[in-house]
């Protein structure tokens, strides 16, 4: 195959890639329920490098409610719920609710351009689990999966699949956790 043919083929594939997302974007409405974890246990370790090249350690966030979201740019429900995580962070961040978005298996060159397309663009830490080892420790079985860690460092809630994180009921649920 010549260089020109190769280039044409590449462009055709890139164009077709855009077609994948309309199909995958035909999704059910997002709900806002968080499932309580029946027997809260200590959250697994989470210490990862952020997009800003800083080490973020979950253990240093004791006393706050931490929403830990596992995601990837190619995952349609992850993309869909990302703006609501930022809205949550903007509304509840100063009250003691923080968000850590753990990207699985991708690098900064892939994630950074995507974040520019999110409205509003995330201001909370984006962390990189490049080899998916943290995902495994947290026993995630599908993306997106989100855990809520209480101020005591224990897992309090879990959500499998996309959610509307800025729904008032969900925000109330998180703020109540701060009071416990």
């Amino acid at each position, binding site marked *: 195959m010549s260089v020109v043919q190769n280039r044409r083929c590449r462009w055709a594939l890139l164009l077709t890639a855009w077609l994948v997302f309309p*199909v995958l974007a035909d999704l*059910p409405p997002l709900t806002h329920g968080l499932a309580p974890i029946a027997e809260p246990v200590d959250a697994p370790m989470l210490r990862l490098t952020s997009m800003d090249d800083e080490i973020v350690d979950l253990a240093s966030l004791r006393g706050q409610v931490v929403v830990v979201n596992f995601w990837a740019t190619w995952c349609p429900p992850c993309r869909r719920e990302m703006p609501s995580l930022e809205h949550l962070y903007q509304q509840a961040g100063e009250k003691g609710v923080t968000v850590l978005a753990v990207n699985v298996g*991708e690098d900064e060159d892939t994630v950074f351009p995507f974040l520019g397309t999110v409205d509003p663009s995330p201001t909370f830490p984006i962390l990189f689990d490049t080899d998916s080892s943290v995902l495994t420790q947290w026993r995630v*079985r*599908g993306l997106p999966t989100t855990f809520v860690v209480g101020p005591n460092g224990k897992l309090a809630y879990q959500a*499998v699949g996309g959610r509307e994180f800025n729904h008032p009921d969900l925000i109330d649920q998180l703020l109540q956790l701060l009071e416990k």
Partner: protein
Amino acid sequence: MLRDISRRLIPVILSLLWGESALAQTRSVDPETGSVTWETQTHGVTLSLTQILPDQARAFYVNRGMPTAATESYAKSCVYMTVLRNDSAPDVVHFRLADWSVVSEAGSQSPIGAATWLKRFEADALSQSARIAFRWAQFPPEQEYQPGGDWNQGMLSTGLPPNSEFDLVARWDVAGEPFEGVLKNVRCAK
């Protein structure tokens, strides 16, 4: 007398059940891509399959660094974007993909899970990022959905040739009680 009543009621109940299951399955076509979606709601659970056209599967994985040979075999394996959601089941919905059946003229088989595909790709030397993207883009091999809206969306490979027709029997349990949802006359993309 009881026997007489039950004799009259059973066909009515069966026809109602049949009618409900027949009505429960819908089929829709995406006007932009031509992809077909089959969906059913049963026992508080939504199940749907949307065709992923071979070109779409190729593009998705080539753009994530998968070698062409690996992408090609997967893209031709009759792949669906699959959604399973616990809308209103009374308890946790638990399933194992290995318990599901793809029933076609060729017989009955389980969908081909991520682990099987990754084993097939061993000779293709996938990069770490491509392997992770492939694994996590697939429908989970086992999962639990809490009541109130837990769900997943992922790719499911039936392993059938293009244009095949089949029934998908999805099985799950709720608090140990078995349930199933069936999508009938599903067709693979050409």
